[in-house]
């Protein structure tokens, strides 16, 4: 199963990419652990997560094709 990861704002300074496809991750905690391993600077970053454009507050089970967005505090306007 594939999950699409999106990175926005200052997080792209850490990841250097705005999009990643990962395989076989069944919940958002696994995705987070994987990313913090791959990009240690993420551990110190403040960010929110959204699954399919809905903000999540806690661990969320993932389905194939889900889109997980990593977003630093908003600064529009």
């Amino acid at each position, binding site marked *: 199963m594939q999950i699409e990861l999106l990175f926005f704002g200052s997080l792209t300074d850490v990841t250097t990419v705005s999009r990643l496809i990962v395989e076989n991750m069944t919940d958002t905690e696994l995705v987070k652990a994987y990313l913090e391993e791959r990009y240690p600077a993420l551990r110190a970053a403040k960010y929110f997560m959204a699954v399919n454009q809905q903000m999540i507050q806690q661990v969320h089970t993932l389905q194939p094709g889900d889109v997980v*967005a990593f977003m630093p505090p908003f600064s*529009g*306007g």
Partner: protein
Amino acid sequence: MKEKKIRNIFTEGAIPAQQIADDIQKHATQTQIGAHSIFLGQVRADRKDGGTVNAIEYTAYTEMALEKMAEIRETLFAKYALTCMHVFHSLGRVAVGEICLFVFVSSQHRKAAIDACEELVEAIKFQLPIWGKEILDNEDSTWKENK
């Protein structure tokens, strides 16, 4: 099933002052309107460590922003007696002195337009997934923070 209508709010680059005049003029035929409340965000030449802001470069999670904006719109129309609400936000580079946000709320009586406009500006700043990167005159950059 979501029934709310998704409308685009994003404009590439700065919002021209002329567009604001044109949008006001368009509302002259809506003779039930008595009040327009408008908010404009303009890019400021703030001093930062190492330089002065020359421009802001905006990026957004556009699909999510438009979805969220449609929700905010519905909420405000339910809460206030509004006639119209229009929002334009820049994407990409907007230079100092240029307009990056244009919020336009109209109603029969002034209180609804004024209160809804203020609430809408706060919602845009804190609920829409948009990010501003401040480009300094020494070509360094720093990520904008909303207060």
